């Protein structure tokens, strides 16, 4: 009997690996303005893969991911500003804060399903801003400004490493037993439970990992903008961008979040210099068009219409 080799890396992972290695090797020679663009892109990709872990894999749509990112940013700002940690350690702190928050928030919100979960995460996101505004240690509503040197290369390699680990974990999770468990939950949670899957635990696992990476990405973001400021950090647009990225790229896939991040981030940088705000109209239109005509996103659609790609694209 011929069984597919489930643990073999496959062309998609190889491709992603080659892409990341080329980036890493050439980074020292990339001009600074391009390097900062790449840093922004990698932060976006990390956020997209983060949301992919929960929304893409389990089907639980979260509007609240900005919370992990924002608190990650505050954790870095507090760690570097107040505790005098080196920025990389601050990113580690940001990841831990994201993880802890996701465990706490997930333990409650993941009891809701479908649209109720989505609403609960949205409520958490709105409430979180007003909580932070009240905390004296976190800048008393003014935010925290950091005075760190501009080190694009160490910033680049930090976010690069986070993304590489995240892609590796996504691959590992989607294969084998856990992957089947998570896909079962996405397909039919009641049926999953009655076949012995501890859906509550698996969902929390995916959500916690998701929070960890969103927190780390938020840490690097704060490092990049030299501080954490409430109305910027908690801007719901971050949540919507993350959703747009995975919808455009292909939910639950291995390559989709990166494609989505490129598709959303690059134009957003161009629009930044041309017509501020125009970006959202375009993203909104693109998401509507995708949802209506190619709901599987770039990766899913390619797989659907080009059968030869099925074994290659994940």
């Amino acid at each position: 009997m011929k069984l597919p080799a489930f643990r073999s890396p496959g062309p998609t992972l190889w491709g992603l690996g080659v892409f990341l290695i080329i980036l890493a090797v050439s980074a020292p020679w990339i001009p600074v303005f391009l390097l900062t663009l790449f840093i922004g892109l990698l932060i976006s990709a990390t956020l997209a893969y983060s949301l992919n872990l929960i929304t893409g894999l389990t089907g639980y749509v979260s509007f609240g991911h900005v919370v992990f990112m924002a608190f990650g940013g505050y954790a870095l700002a507090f760690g570097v500003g107040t505790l005098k940690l080196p920025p990389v350690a601050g990113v580690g702190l940001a990841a831990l804060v994201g993880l802890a928050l996701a465990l706490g928030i997930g333990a409650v919100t993941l009891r809701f399903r479908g649209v109720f979960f989505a609403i609960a995460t949205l409520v958490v996101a709105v409430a979180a801003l007003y909580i932070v505004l009240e905390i004296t240690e976190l800048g008393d509503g003014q935010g925290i400004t950091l005075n760190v040197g501009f080190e694009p290369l160490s910033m680049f390699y930090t976010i690069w490493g986070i993304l590489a680990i995240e892609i590796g974990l996504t691959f590992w999770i989607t294969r084998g037993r856990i992957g089947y468990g998570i896909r079962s939950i996405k397909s039919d949670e009641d049926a999953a439970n009655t076949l012995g899957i501890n859906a509550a635990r698996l969902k929390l696992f995916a959500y916690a990992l998701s929070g960890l990476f969103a927190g780390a990405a938020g840490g690097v973001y704060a490092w990049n903008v030299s501080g954490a400021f409430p109305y910027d950090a908690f801007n719901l647009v971050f949540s919507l961008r993350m959703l747009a990225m995975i919808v455009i790229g292909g939910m639950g896939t291995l390559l989709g979040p990166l494609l989505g991040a490129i598709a959303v981030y690059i134009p957003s940088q161009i629009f930044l210099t041309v017509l501020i705000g125009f970006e959202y109209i375009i993203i909104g239109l693109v998401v509507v068009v995708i949802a209506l005509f190619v709901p599987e996103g770039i990766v899913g659609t390619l797989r659907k219409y080009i059968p030869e790609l099925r074994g290659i694209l994940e």
Partner: protein
Amino acid sequence: MTRVLEVSQVHKYFGGVRAVEGVSLTLEEGRVIGLIGPNGSGKSTLCNLIAGVEKPTKGTITFAGQRIDRWPAHRVVEQGIAKTHQIPKPFLAMTCRENVAVAAMFGSNKQKDLPEALETAGRVLALVGLEAKVDVISSNLTVQERKRLEFARVLGTGARILLLDEIFAGLSPEELRDAIALFVKVQGEVGFGALVVEHVMRAVLTVSEHVVVIEEGMKIAEGTPREVVENDAVIEAYLGVEATHAST
């Protein structure tokens, strides 16, 4: 050692609705019990209570001497009790083999190795006569095939007690005959215990050695199939209702 499922004086209220009121039954591995009753009599609710999908308001459920009535559903399955869904709920994007492999990996078998679980799945699918559909995506199955897949999945969990919610419903007389023969054959081979919840009298009476009848959440009769069909309360409550429906 054969393990015994013991349901005693179980009640389930949904607000003011008394879905199950004081039902008791005993089922051991290797035996087949039928559970019949009119629509809305609480059969499915009772199944859900045993499977851990719902928690009883009152009463206890034990399996192999352990109280299981407060356990979450996945834990009940791990201990060896699995239920089918009245409306089949296959994982639509997966093949039949993958559907059953999920059961093998997470049920009481806990086959953590994926290739091994996929092989088990192949064997189980052959057992229920779905060998031709092994690599078919389950969304392409007919309703009857979905019911068989549902049966294959509970078998795949390795459960020793199966709660089978209307797996014989909606079949043509010919399909029903085949399904009954298949059930008897598989039960003989695997030796599981089963609670067969059914509307179709012929199926229940053929496959079960003992039948429990409930009406409005209460047990009104039990005994061998013959005793039950001759019981006046049953004829009035169950068959009577059916007959009235048939004539209108």
